[in-house]
């Protein structure tokens, strides 16, 4: 079985052990551990690093691309007049560049979208995380995610043709025109449900089982456990989901460009039409604006405002996600 004695027994010499080089029998001496030069690897690593740097370059590119024309814009228009002016008429003879009308439309569509997406998204998340058996969950989740995969032009078409025209005007006989921020906001809300649901569900699933068991052991039922134990524990994740939902709603373009309307005026009710910031950019792009013209610069000034808003919102969301990842 364990037949042989060691080779070292037969080859043993009586010299005291040293760390000096020895040559294993039958093999050529290999004295150095110095490696081969591998210039190829260095090149590859550099290429990979450059590829990763494209992400940074993109951000820098966005900032420069937005800033340069925006600076041109603010040479012509006071920052104060832009931010707080209540008349948006960039193409008129007596042009006015108050962005408030665009902002009110964005606020309306975003608020309506959140009113739809937050309760429904959270409801779906609690059901999937706390109630659904794995099989039910594995069927429902892809269906829910389909909602996120539908192109926004298709949503826009649906909002305009079905929700606004058929439901609001023909069925409900609401006092509304061809477009409304309500139709755009509602559909946008449904589009955002999967975003809110999936991030909230991640956060709730990350809550340790022991917390739930502790609650059940005290005689609490599922509802009490979900609302009083799991939900508070997952709150920062839920907040992150809501914040990301806000970011999606503010930045969404096609739905509002199609269904919210194209008249820039201060929106005072959900059945009015209105032009959002993104809606303005999309619409202005349809016209032919030369590089360097004030129209072109206006596009980028609004784009910069949009970018800054979503940037702030995104950072809040990233922070919140980090917090719930650290908690457990």
């Amino acid at each position, binding site marked *: 079985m*364990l037949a*042989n004695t*060691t080779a*070292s027994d037969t080859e043993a010499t009586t010299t005291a*052990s040293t760390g*000096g*080089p*020895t040559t294993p029998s039958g093999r050529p001496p290999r*004295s150095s*551990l110095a490696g081969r030069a591998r210039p190829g690897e260095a090149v590859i690593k550099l290429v990979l690093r450059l590829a990763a740097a494209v992400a940074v370059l993109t951000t820098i590119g966005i900032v420069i691309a937005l800033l340069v024309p925006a600076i041109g814009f603010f040479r012509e228009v006071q920052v104060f007049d832009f931010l707080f002016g209540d008349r948006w008429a960039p193409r008129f003879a007596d042009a006015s560049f108050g962005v408030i009308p665009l902002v009110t439309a964005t606020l309306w569509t975003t608020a309506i979208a959140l009113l739809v997406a937050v309760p429904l998204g959270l409801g779906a998340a609690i059901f999937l995380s706390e109630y659904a058996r794995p099989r039910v969950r594995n069927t429902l989740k892809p269906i829910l995610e389909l909602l996120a995969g539908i192109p926004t032009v298709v949503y826009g078409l649906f909002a305009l043709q079905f929700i606004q025209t058929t439901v609001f005007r023909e069925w409900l006989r609401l006092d509304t025109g061809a477009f409304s921020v309500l139709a755009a906001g509602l559909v946008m809300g449904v589009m955002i449900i999967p975003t809110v649901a999936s991030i909230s569900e991640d956060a709730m699933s990350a809550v340790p089982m022991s917390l739930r068991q502790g609650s059940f052991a005290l005689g609490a039922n599922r509802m009490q456990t979900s609302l009083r134990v799991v939900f508070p524990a997952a709150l920062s994740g839920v907040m992150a989901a809501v914040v990301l939902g806000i970011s999606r709603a503010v930045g969404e373009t096609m739905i509002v460009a199609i269904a919210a309307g194209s008249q820039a005026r201060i929106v005072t009710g959900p059945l009015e039409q209105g032009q959002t910031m993104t809606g303005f950019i999309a619409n202005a792009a349809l016209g032919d604006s030369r590089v360097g013209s004030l129209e072109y610069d206006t596009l980028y000034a609004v784009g910069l405002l949009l970018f800054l808003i979503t940037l702030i919102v995104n950072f809040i969301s990233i922070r919140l996600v980090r917090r719930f990842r650290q908690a457990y």
Partner: protein
Amino acid sequence: MASAPDNAPMHLHATHPGQVPDYIARPIMRVENVDVYYGDFRAVTEVNLEFGLHEITALIGPSGCGKSTLLRSLNRMNDLIDGARVDGEILFHGENIYSKGVDPIEVRRRIGMVFQKPNPFPKSIYDNIAYGPRVTGMKVESMDDLVEESLTRAALWDEVKDKLKQSAIGLSGGQQQRLCIARAISVRPDVILMDEPCASLDPIATMRIEDLMQELREQYTIVIVTHNMQQAARVADRTAFFTAQVSEGTGARTGVLVEYGTTTQIFEDPNDQRTEDYISGRFG
């Protein structure tokens, strides 16, 4: 093959073939004043050891005593962990493997490693063996011959020779581990480090690996970390016993080498009380 300490290790050891002298006649590796750190945490301290050519050396001791950490620093696998650092010298054929100009890639080729969990690549059996020679640019006359030779040495050839193109994932745990040994020897290393190679195997598979180690030691030097004292007693020529020292201030556990000698001496006549307590099952 029970994991509880045997009260008569002498009996087990009586059948051991490798009766080695007290001194190491032909050292191949030498560990001098080695401390291993992970960041600020000192995992192992003040280790001095020598590994004899074509000998099997076992590193034993309770969990958390740093034996695996030390093993991973012997072929610079520790380099891959952020913040890992080795103080002192580890000499291989007299050359410090941590000195400047030494290529860790070359170190790992010359000092192979077998892991606790069998980790065959998700490729065919043949490609698992051929992988090492290919990536290290070994000049091979016939890859088929090299694959056969490696598998034969790892006592796996007869079982797999008809299914070399099949995925290695389909093999049993014991076969996978022997495949990993075959893979390790395919690049012709001098030393094979084994990190609890039988920890996830059943007793029969464990026995086959132990038999295999006896055959391998004719060509290779083996350093094995094991939790299982009987395994050390059965296979090793020399044994090093480690334990964890708990720092009074911080409660940090640092591994220290307690005693190193021939396996016979460690198991039959330990010099240190801690060794004797561990061997006789009083702790660990």
